[in-house]
């Protein structure tokens, strides 16, 4: 999927996260993760974010995640929502979202 505009999804409330997605001039995929629990769960959060982006075939774009202690399922959903908004994807391919 191609990121064509800036988009956000989520909140900065506890147990949630805010995901910002934007096109990248360099054409690379740059993921920045900030979390209150980065020491304990940083690897796990990055794994979920990367896996979600891979399934959506996002190869380029800036993805910034501000995590407030969200569960994996919430992280996955917010990343998906931000990417789909940034790609203006109106038709969902559910097989890519599981």
């Amino acid at each position: 999927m191609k990121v064509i505009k800036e988009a956000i999804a989520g909140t900065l409330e506890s147990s949630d996260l805010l995901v910002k997605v934007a096109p990248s001039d360099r054409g690379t995929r740059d993921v920045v993760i900030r979390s209150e629990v980065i020491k304990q769960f940083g690897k796990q959060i990055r794994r979920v974010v990367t896996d979600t982006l891979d399934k959506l075939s996002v190869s380029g774009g800036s993805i910034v995640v501000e995590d407030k202690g969200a569960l994996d399922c919430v992280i996955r959903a917010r990343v998906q929502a931000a990417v789909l908004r940034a790609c203006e994807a109106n038709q969902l391919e559910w097989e890519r979202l599981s």
Partner: protein
Amino acid sequence: MKLRRSMLFVPGDNGAMLSTSFVYNPDSVMFDLEDAVSPREKDSARLMVYQALQHPAYRDIETVVRINGVDTPFWQEDLEAAVRGGADIVRLPKTETAQEIQELETHVARIEKACGRAVGDTKLMAAIESASGVVNAVAIARASPRMVAIAMAGFDYLVDMHTRRSAGWEPELFYARAAVLHAARAAHIDAFDVVYGNVNDDEGFLREVQIAKQLGFNGKSLIHPKQIDLLHKAYAPTEAEVSHAKRVLAAADEAHRKGLGVVSLDGKMVDPPVIHEAEMALQMAEAA
């Protein structure tokens, strides 16, 4: 028999509640994609619910998804998220006719086939929120073999009826409650009473619970976790009722062993309805 005393509303776009609602042990969790979610967040909430449904924490709890009404542009995508996510039940708000349930069922079956779920696995329930819905409640309750429950929703109904909530015995809801409950019983499905909106008024909540329980509702839709324990305790049988239920079942067992058709206990006949009531009382006591 599946106990359905408490159905807890969980806003579909609330990360904290999606992450914690299972710890309160309601009989059913209802992820809401309708009124609790603003139109611009429907897409994100749909994905949140889709993902939460697959979380292991919800594996052992009945999950319900309230989709948007069939008069909105949202309901079909909501349905995809609910059925593909594995929801046990889809709740249709503002149901007014049996045809709406039948249309919903057609789409549910289509999605089940597309995603590999067994056709018929997803159950349905209808919320009645208007005079038309109340008048058609029997047809709605019987509209599909997938129907497992029908719920009364008070706010929209009272607006439709040109009245408002009162305290006390609530005459404004009496006819609708009785009609919806009769429809459920005639269709052999469960019935949920309205939500009680003032979460700081335990006394008022318990008063309304007693009305619902006495009328015969299985339980209530709830908007706050603190109402779950209050409701379960109110629905729990007393020690005397538990003791009586045990004696009824013991008498029935003895009659069965002796090959007797009926038996009496304290001068009263113990027949199948009495045995069923005793079994339900013990189930309620165990769950409380």
